[in-house]
Each structure stands twice: as structure tokens, then as C-alpha cells.
């Protein structure tokens, strides 16, 4: 094997070419053999997986990569000089074997790594993934998580509407609307800057004390939410409304100014141009960034436990504290991850479906005319 690596680059004469392909073959074979040997050793001596892991990863993997590079080089040489087919085939075979060596060593290394972590750190498994505890806490955790789901679904619907209201307010024309525009700007600046946890704290604990008439009473209920939960939803809407308003605004401003001009040129009022032409196009463009904010919102529902809302995280951490085992929290974490995946896929689908139309700028979308380039606005 050391001989193989030590061999110099293939030179043009016939025997050397042979040697190039041969060397590639030997090295790649060694990579596979090493990987297999690692696996075998690991299987026979389960206690010593850490060392075998090193052996496989430090030797077999780089060897495979080297063999692949060397094989390619040899093959290129042979093909360049129209060398004999057998040499070419040998080099190609060497490349395939090298790929196998790379894949095998990575798989083995990963497998051994997990195995090492698993067996070496049994306590870790016991603490984070204890099956009995996962089972025992499942009911509690899912009940709590359902509250998270309910909260974020309602909050997301409200955020969609509220964010759009703020964004459109910010775009209102005319002097009369100036105070409204300032309010919208101030709102976004404040709530985007405030840490969510502070907003939640202030809203849930502060608002009831303020005795403002709009604050729901202690016995109020809406959609099955009690007072604290309502305030929790409100806090999340305030935080994420600010983000989403900015997302919408970016979307609105990304619609080419000519679209607004074309709409107004047809006699549509500013409001109608916004409603029928600008906003529908903006909405389609903001779906992906909107989804990011929604995923953020979903995760931040867990913060509501500081407000004394018995949602998933409160339930899970409660179980963890009583049983000295964190598996309930791991289980909840899995729930949060799992729920975002279909959303992401759905977004991808929506985006792909709309993609062609989103791009639509019509004639000469690539043409920058003078007015457009200098920022002309209707």
C-alpha cells in the first residue's frame, strides 16, 4: 500500500501508464479494504469502537479520496493518449472502487460514531431518550403541544392580517396619513427590537394591571382561550406582526413601479391599484420569508410558559423536573421539528407553482428604462 502511494504520476510510456491505472486500483482497493476491516474490527471488539472509528475515518476515507483523484488522473492520461482500452477500464474500475471506499468509510464512521456515542454515553441516552419516560410523558406533552399548535395557528392568522395592515399603513400616501405612517414605523421599530420574552412578560403581566378598557377580563374567553392565553397570543402577534409587516413591505416595494403606474393609468385609484395589482403580486413573493417568520413564531410559543401558560414546554419541563429525566423535553422538541417539515415542503410547492408568474414583468423585464433606473414612482 505504501508502495502504491509512493508511485509517481503516470508517464507517457506504456508500462508507466499501466502502473498509473494499477496504482489507482491498489489505492482504492486499500481504501475499501480498510473500511471493511474497520467494520469487522468494530463488530468483533465492540468495546473499542472509538479507536476503530479513528482507523476508518483517518485512513480509509482520505485513502479513498486520494484513490479517486489518482484514478481520475490516470484515466485522463490514458484517454488523452488514446491508450489501450484495458488500461482505461482498469482506471475506471479503480475510480468506482474508490467511490465505494469513500461511501463505505463515511457510512461506517457515522455508524460507529453513533454507536460510540450510544454505548459510551448510555447515561445520555437514558436522560434524553428514555423510552419509558417518553411514553409516560407523551400524553402530557401532546396535550401541552396541542395548546402551542392552537396558539400559533390563531396567532399566524392574526399576524397575516395585522402585518398587512401595518405594511399598507406605512405606504399610505398624503400628508393626512403622516401620523399613521409614523405610528406604523414606531411600532415596527419597537417590537422588532424588543426581545420576545420581554414583550410577552410586559403584555401578559402588565396589561391586566393597566386596567385599560381593551384588556380582556379575567373570566373572558375566546375560541377556548382564557385571559392569559389571549394575552399570550396578543404578545406573539405584536412581536411577529412587526417582522411580517417588514416582509410585506419588502414585497410591496419589489413590485415594479410600472405596475402601479399601469393600474393608475387605467383609472384605478391608488387604493384599488394597491388592492388588485400590487398586493396580490407582493403576497406571492413573500411566501418564503413569511414561512420563516411563522416557523419562528411556532417555536416562540414555548416562551409563553414564562407567562404561566401550561403549553407543551411547561408540561415537558414540569415532567422533567419531577422525574429527573429530560426525555419529555426531547419528545416535545421532536414535535416542534416534525411540524415545521410539512410546512416547508408545502411552501416549496407553492413557490414552484407560482414561480413562473411571479417573475412576470412582461415585455422587456430585463430592460431598465431611464425613469425606472432613476427611481421614478407614480
Amino acid at each position, binding site marked *: 500500500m505504501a508502495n502504491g502511494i509512493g508511485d509517481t504520476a503516470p508517464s507517457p510510456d506504456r508500462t508507466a501508464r499501466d502502473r498509473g491505472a494499477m496504482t489507482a486500483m491498489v489505492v482504492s482497493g486499500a481504501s475499501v479494504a480498510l473500511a471493511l476491516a474497520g467494520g469487522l474490527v468494530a463488530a468483533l471488539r465492540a468495546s473499542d469502537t472509538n479507536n476503530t472509528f479513528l482507523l476508518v475515518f483517518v485512513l480509509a476515507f482520505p485513502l479513498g479520496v486520494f484513490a479517486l483523484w489518482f484514478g481520475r488522473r490516470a484515466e485522463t492520461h490514458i484517454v488523452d493518449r488514446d491508450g489501450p482500452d484495458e488500461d482505461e477500464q482498469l482506471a475506471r474500475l479503480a475510480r468506482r472502487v474508490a467511490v465505494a471506499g469513500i461511501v463505505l468509510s463515511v457510512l461506517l464512521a457515522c455508524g460507529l460514531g453513533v454507536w460510540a456515542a450510544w454505548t459510551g454515553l448510555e447515561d445520555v441516552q437514558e436522560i434524553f431518550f428514555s423510552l419509558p419516560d417518553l411514553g409516560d410523558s407523551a400524553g402530557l406533552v401532546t396535550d401541552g403541544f396541542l395548546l402551542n399548535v392552537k396558539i400559533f395557528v390563531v396567532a399566524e392568522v392574526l399576524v397575516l392580517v395585522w402585518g398587512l395592515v401595518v405594511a399598507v399603513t406605512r405606504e399610505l400616501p398624503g400628508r393626512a396619513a403622516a401620523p399613521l405612517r409614523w405610528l406604523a414605523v414606531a411600532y415596527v421599530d419597537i417590537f422588532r427590537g424588543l426581545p420576545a420574552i420581554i414583550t410577552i412578560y410586559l403584555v401578559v403581566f402588565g396589561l391586566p394591571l393597566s386596567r385599560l378598557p381593551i384588556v380582556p377580563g379575567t373570566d373572558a374567553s375566546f375560541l377556548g382561550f382564557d385571559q392569559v392565553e389571549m394575552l399570550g397570543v396578543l404578545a406573539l402577534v405584536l412581536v411577529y406582526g412587526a417582522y411580517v409587516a417588514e416582509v410585506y413591505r419588502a414585497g410591496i416595494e419589489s413590485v415594479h413601479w410600472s405596475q402601479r403606474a*399601469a393600474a393608475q393609468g387605467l383609472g384605478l*385609484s391608488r387604493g384599488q391599484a394597491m388592492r388588485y395589482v400590487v398586493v396580490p403580486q407582493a403576497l406571492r413573493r413573500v411566501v418564503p420569508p413569511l414561512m420563516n417568520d411563522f416557523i419562528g413564531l411556532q417555536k416562540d410559543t414555548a416562551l409563553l410558559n414564562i407567562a404561566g401558560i401550561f403549553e407543551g414546554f411547561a408540561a415537558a419541563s414540569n415532567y422533567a423536573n419531577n422525574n429527573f429525566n429530560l426525555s419529555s423535553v426531547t419528545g416535545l422538541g421532536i414535535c416542534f421539528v416534525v411540524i415545521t417539515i410539512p410546512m416547508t415542503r408545502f411552501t416549496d410547492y407553492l413557490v414552484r407553482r407560482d414561480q413562473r408568474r411571479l417573475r412576470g414583468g412582461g415585455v*422587456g423585464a430585463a430592460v431598465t*428604462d431611464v425613469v425606472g433606473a432613476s427611481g*421614478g414612482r407614480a
Partner: protein
Amino acid sequence: MTPVVEIRGLVKRFGFTTVLDGIDLDVTDHEVVCLIGASGSGKSTLLRCVNGLEPLSSGTVTVAGRTVIQDDIKLNRLRRDVGIVFQSYNLFPHMTVMHNVTLAPRKVLHLSTEEAEQRARPLLERIGLADKASAYPDSLSGGQQQRVAIVRALAMQPKLMLFDEITSALDPELVNEVLLMMKDLAQEGMTMIVATHEMAFARDVANKVCFLHQGKILEEGPPQQIFTSPKEERTAEFLKRTLESGRL
């Protein structure tokens, strides 16, 4: 001869740059006026001032008896009578062709969907795109898109049409179909102001050609005169340069 458009002493500034510097122009009924001039001479700006898309710095513009002032309600009313087609980004990409054409009649003139479609269909047939009514703009060629944009403006039955270099973003083989349509419109008696680099079109169709230079109408007159014996040296120079670039 009733003037459809009356422009007096129109000045338009963007910050410290004066783009239009005292424009006087009358356009009478059924007249076709072509605006020519170098890039940046203010053709687009002039058109946009005529339907109030740009606020005027000073001077007056009257269209079909209505004065252009910066008042949203008055402007919306005025724009019903004025169709405008731009160089690009005309059609609404999220709407079908039919929806594009019927939007303004429905929302501005408050026609029912059926009434609006009855109005739109013959117009689409006229440009041979009736079968594309439910297609989205991105599936149309550039020339088809521009013709739909014209038809969309016509659906409002305007008294005046403004065209801002609507063929200059098109592939050369698509330019003709659009120019032919504009020619037809002119022959039917539509009053039009056309900013264009298509000198042959201006020569054939215009009643009056205005040469814009540094924010002023340096020279205006019938196309035969402007194109064959321009009075101003600058006009001659511009035409010579245009000719050399093969656009006449």
C-alpha cells in the same frame, strides 16, 4: 377642431434638474402627435405629466376639458379618458388576459363581469387573441403582450391614447404587429401622443412631429417638413444620427 390636450408652459423638475422646460403643445381631436428626441430628452416625462402620473412643477395641462391637478379623485376621473401604454411591465402578471382587460371596466366603470367581458371579447378578437383570454401574460410573446396592453387601455374607451416607446423592448420581428395596430387605431381616428424612436412610423402616421431637446419642443411640424427640411440644426443632427443607426 376641439383641442383634446392643451399644454401651456409646462415645467417639470426632479430635484434640481429641469427635465421639461416650458412645453406648449396642442393636440386636436383625431390628431396623432409623435414625440421624437434623444434618450433623456423628456418624452416619457411629458407623457406621464399628461395623465398626472408625475406632478407638474408649473404650467397647466388640460385633457378633454379637465385640468391636471394633484388631486387623487380628479386624477382618477381624468385617467379614465386617457389610456397609456408603457415600454414594459404593462400587463399584470398574476391575472389572465381577460382579467387584465376587464379589471378597470369592472372596478372603475362598475360594469358587471359579463358586461366587461362582452366589451373585451371583440377587442381581443380584433387582435386575434380571443383564444388566449384565459392565458397568463407570461405565455404570450412580447408583441402579443403589448397588443393586449393596448386593448386593455381601449376597453376604457379613452378619448386619448399615450404610447411611450412601446416597441423598443420588443424583438425586431415583433415590432411590426404592434406598429400596425397603432396605425389602425390612428386611421380609426383615435387621438394619440406617441413617444417613439420608430421614425418610419412617425413619418407615415403622424400629423405632427415634435422634436424634444433639453426639455423644450425645439421644432414641430408635419412629418414631411421635419424629416425632409428641418429648420433647426439640432433636429437635422438628431435625424442624421438616427438614420446612421439604421432606424429610419
